[in-house]
């Protein structure tokens, strides 16, 4: 946890990738653990393949839905050509998950609908939120394919814990 007690995760990619559901699960897992959470998203034209971004902020009392520029603790980019657009939001010493994206694509193969869950697993390995809270949050969000999602999530979580690129 940073000194001011609020932690910021930025998920981004393009419409249809499940960026928003990854952010939703992250937020719900943190709430499950008792954090105050604000989640803010830009999805104006997401359905039409546009850029999508979602900030999740957790702490004891979160004020702003947006962090100060360049103060993101954890950067989770899900789409290669979008990476540059927001990478400067990451703070010095923050975690950049972009190096994992190649590995994530290799793991999920043509099952690209699980890319978000795998990345979420990596995110989970870096946040002070219990594993059971993540699983509960996923169960509530994914009505279908929960078991498969859980598998990809746990693979990502393990890769994150082992720093396995």
């Amino acid at each position: 946890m940073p000194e001011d007690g609020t932690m910021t995760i930025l998920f981004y990619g393009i419409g249809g990738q499940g960026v928003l559901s990854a952010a939703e699960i992250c937020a719900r897992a943190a709430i499950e653990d008792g954090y105050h959470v604000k989640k803010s998203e830009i999805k104006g034209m997401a359905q039409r393949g546009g850029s999508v971004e979602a900030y999740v902020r957790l702490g004891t009392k979160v004020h702003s839905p947006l962090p100060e520029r360049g103060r993101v603790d954890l950067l989770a980019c899900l789409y290669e050509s979008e990476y540059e657009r927001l990478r400067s939001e990451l703070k010095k010493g923050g975690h950049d998950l972009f190096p994992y994206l190649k590995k994530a694509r290799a793991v999920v193969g043509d099952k690209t609908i699980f890319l978000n869950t795998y990345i979420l697993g990596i995110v989970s390995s870096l946040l002070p939120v219990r594993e059971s809270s993540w699983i509960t949050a996923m169960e509530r969000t994914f009505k279908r394919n929960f078991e498969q999602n859980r598998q990809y999530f746990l693979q990502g979580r393990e890769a994150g814990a082992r720093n396995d690129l």
Partner: protein
Amino acid sequence: MSAPNEERSVFLSGNEAIAWGARHAGVCLASAYPGTPSTEILETLATFPEIEAQWATNEKVACEVAFGACLAGKRALTACKHVGLNVAMDPLMTTAYSGINAGLVVVVADDPGMSSSQNEQDTRRVAPYGKVPLIEPSSPSEAYHFIQESFRISEKFDIPVLFRITTRISHTKESFVLTGQREIPVKPLDKNPRKYVMIPAHARPRHLDLEKRLAALKEYSEQTPLNRAEIKDRKTGFITSGVSACYVKEAYPDASILTCGMSFPLPIKKIGDFAKKVRKLYVVEELEPFLEEQLLQAGLAVTGKKPSWRCGELSPSAVRAIVRRQDRNDPLQKNRRPLLCAGCPHRPVFTALKKAGVYVAGDIGCYTLGALEPLAALHTQLCMGASIPVFEGIRKMTGDKKTVAVIGDSTFFHTGLSGLLSAAHNGTRGVVLILDNAITAMTGAQSNPGTGATLQGKPSRKISPEKLCVAAGADQVDVIDPYQMDAFYRLLQTRLAEDKLSVIIARSPCRMVERSRQSPYRIDEAACKRCGLCLKLDCPAIAKRDDGTVVIDQGLCVGCGLCRQVCKFQAINTKEGASGA
């Protein structure tokens, strides 16, 4: 009458929080027309069976239905986006004179930064102009509480309340606890023509009364906890409202802050007292200098922002820059360009219009994307329903037959119909295209009179646009599937050559509703001459590789076959058959 006390933890967006607050405030009717970022307010209200929630044809109608419900003694709500309130201004202005019976709240969602709008007007200015109180929450949890307070204010002061949010509040989710219970204040229908028939003889005393009500509201604003001062460090103080309050607290957590939850009428005395307690006083607000001007007028020494900050959203970093008296200097964000969906029936329409080389007066909806390269076949877009009148003005002045209007079904029902009536009445000739996908697509597939279902998805009367057009005075009405590209193009050419007012209804379902897929198409690399004709369709499923070959993404393609129709070398086929489906 009240339900058992509810207390539960929730994670709600600002829009959902407003719906829950309205439910607990005992709202019985809510009416709106969809508009980003306000749409989910009604979609959430529609999940509560005890509330009559509905999509109206436009915002003016929605506001009037809500007013009727409040006269009947039931609390009512209408919601719209900022430009939607422009459409509802006529009823709003006079309801302030009449006043209300049961509480009436008008929720309006501004869009600073224009995530999905044609302008970034600051609706707060409507409050002094319309002489109505203005409530501004700064977060979803505040929205939940403040909307309930707004109904009490409405009834206490006999006035509609303007409840203003912004995109960042509408679409931010927050974890908090719901504490309310549903209370329904019951009143009989108010039969009082002196109050509700605004002929001049009645409106004159009501105006005088309105001034008294505003004076009382000014006193109330000094007392209400909606306006709250937090004294901390006395070196720096901030006056703010809405989501800007959150940005100030993030950037300057130790500063003193006065957050105006009721930003019209402003609590000038309270702000004056606050000003005495701090050495330097800043005003931080998004868009227009609405608070700043009122405070300067009251003779308070406040420091505002440079004019460049009237554009776009603020953020914690923006607050710092404003305090440092810097100009707005955002790095240009390279967002991906939005596209029509794969299989979208608007694509063949714009392909044909481009081929015909016509000037297109457009309207508001997904099809506005037809203005962007490479389709680039739409030339004006102003506001809801403007296409047919703008087309009429151009056509009458140029006499050029190669001018058409393009409007979607929902926009046609919203305010397009009156334009067609007027065009027919004034002897206009030419072609109007209605792109009929039987849904309000741009805001995420909401129902409209042509859908055949209500907001709750219950079957309802399905209104026929072709019958409406005949009744409105069109000389000729054709209905055609635009995917029959050759037939559609021939029909367009025929109607363009005639001297009549004709309407072509291009009918095909929206891809967000019609999810079924045909077999995807593939490009035969040997047959492909790389001419790029299929790429000009701007389909998200078709892409050019670095090596120059063109490929169709098998996951994105829905098998509409448009690319096969435009390919001159028979290079595009399905996996199954050489000639395609």
